[in-house]
């Protein structure tokens, strides 16, 4: 039986200010961005980025306040992150600075604006 790489769970918490540096280091080390997603936790939103190399995952997690959530976009490092960042913008209301392909809130055609934001989600779109 080979090693169960699917059971390896590296989840590292970082400050929002360290995001770009951490992601650049992972890109330099040959990691591929697998996914990014947000989770409402109390009055905050937790953002998780999953990176993959040699069939093992390395996850980076950070937290932002739900009232006016803002993060640096990682599209300058991983251009295809625009898919995940536009999704988090439309569903959670997170603003991504320097997002390379910004759909301006029209990526998902949702009936309610930012429906999954714990503070101000669910208003008319």
């Amino acid at each position, binding site marked *: 039986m080979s090693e169960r*790489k*699917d059971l390896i769970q590296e989840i590292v918490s970082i400050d929002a200010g360290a995001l770009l540096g951490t992601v650049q280091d992972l890109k330099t080390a040959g990691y591929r961005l*697998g996914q990014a997603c947000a989770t409402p936790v109390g009055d905050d939103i937790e953002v998780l980025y999953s990176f993959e190399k040699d069939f093992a*995952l390395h996850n980076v997690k950070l937290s932002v306040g739900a009232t006016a959530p803002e993060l640096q976009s990682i599209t300058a490092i991983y*251009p295809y992150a625009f*898919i995940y960042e536009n999704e988090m913008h439309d569903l959670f209301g997170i603003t991504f600075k320097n997002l390379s392909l910004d759909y301006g809130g029209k990526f*998902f055609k*949702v009936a309610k604006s930012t429906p999954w934001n714990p503070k101000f989600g669910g208003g008319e779109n």
Partner: protein
Amino acid sequence: MAKRTIIPFGPQHPVLPEPIHLDLVIEDEKVVEAIPSIGFIHRGLEKLVEKNEWPEMVYVIERVCGICSFGHGWGYCKTIEGNLEVEVPPRAEYLRTIWHELGRIHSHLLWLGLLADGFGFESLFMHSWRLRETVLDIFEETTGGRVIFSVCKVGGVRKDVPDEKLREIAGILNGMRAELSELTDVFLDDLSVKNRLVGVGVLSKQEAFDLGAVGPTARGSGLNNDVRLDGHGAYPDLDFAPCLEEDGDCYARCKVRVREIFQSIDLIEQCVAKIPAGDIAVEIKGKHPAGEFVGRMEQPRGEAFYYSKGSGQKFLERIRVRTPTNANIPALVQTLQGCDLADVPMLVLTIDPCISCTER
């Protein structure tokens, strides 16, 4: 500079069973830029985690897609089992692997039919879907369902399949090989088919990596990211290597899927020969997921992510599904640049887009 025109492609289009929209910037019949737009039918299934207890969420998650529904159910169970640190009985892992590989055969045959329909070869479309019916019949006999089975549960599977029945299934699949070869030879050797696929929409290995491509889209460019190699299910006990092609064009992506149909039959035959006796599930009582876990599956269209986060309650805080089509959209946009307008349908089809998955 020639005049530029923007042609809207979709969300309703003859080659699109589901809605995706592309704004194609055209110059002299060549696409110079493509801007994708999705989200027309976003269902918010992940949000239902707030209203369904975690054992029930498997029914929701397998409805993410009607083609790879079993794989989504398994992916959800896998992330919860990782969260709860539950070890699944080996027989259940083998049964899951068999159903999952049957799903791959069914999905790839469905895709071959859609591709044939896309370039107007209707008899080829009908033969692809006729062969697919055999797989759906096996699903119905072993699970009771043809599309949504609800046979996977956290801790194992709900139904056993007798060894005699498994050997019968392996025999049926082996008997399909001749007809499958006859069918797939047309896709790979027919001149009119090759004219539409060879050299069209080339994605290099480096581009596939840089754009985060997954599944047959990546493997058609020689990029090996087949998640079945990460050690889950019965795969560590099986002898196989990912199907890789180097050319990166529509033909290479088609060839990968054709090879994977036969590979899946091989894997099922190996599973039937090696499946151990024993329990098909472990009972989980009095425990709720309290941590977080990121799991992955190799769906027929490629890598899918399943993230779960719990707080020790019966309702999870979050379930997240990242589907393969989501990851392949940037690669599609890249390959569209520079292609002929007439080839756009082939390019869209050869990433095997599943918008239902993407709009989970």
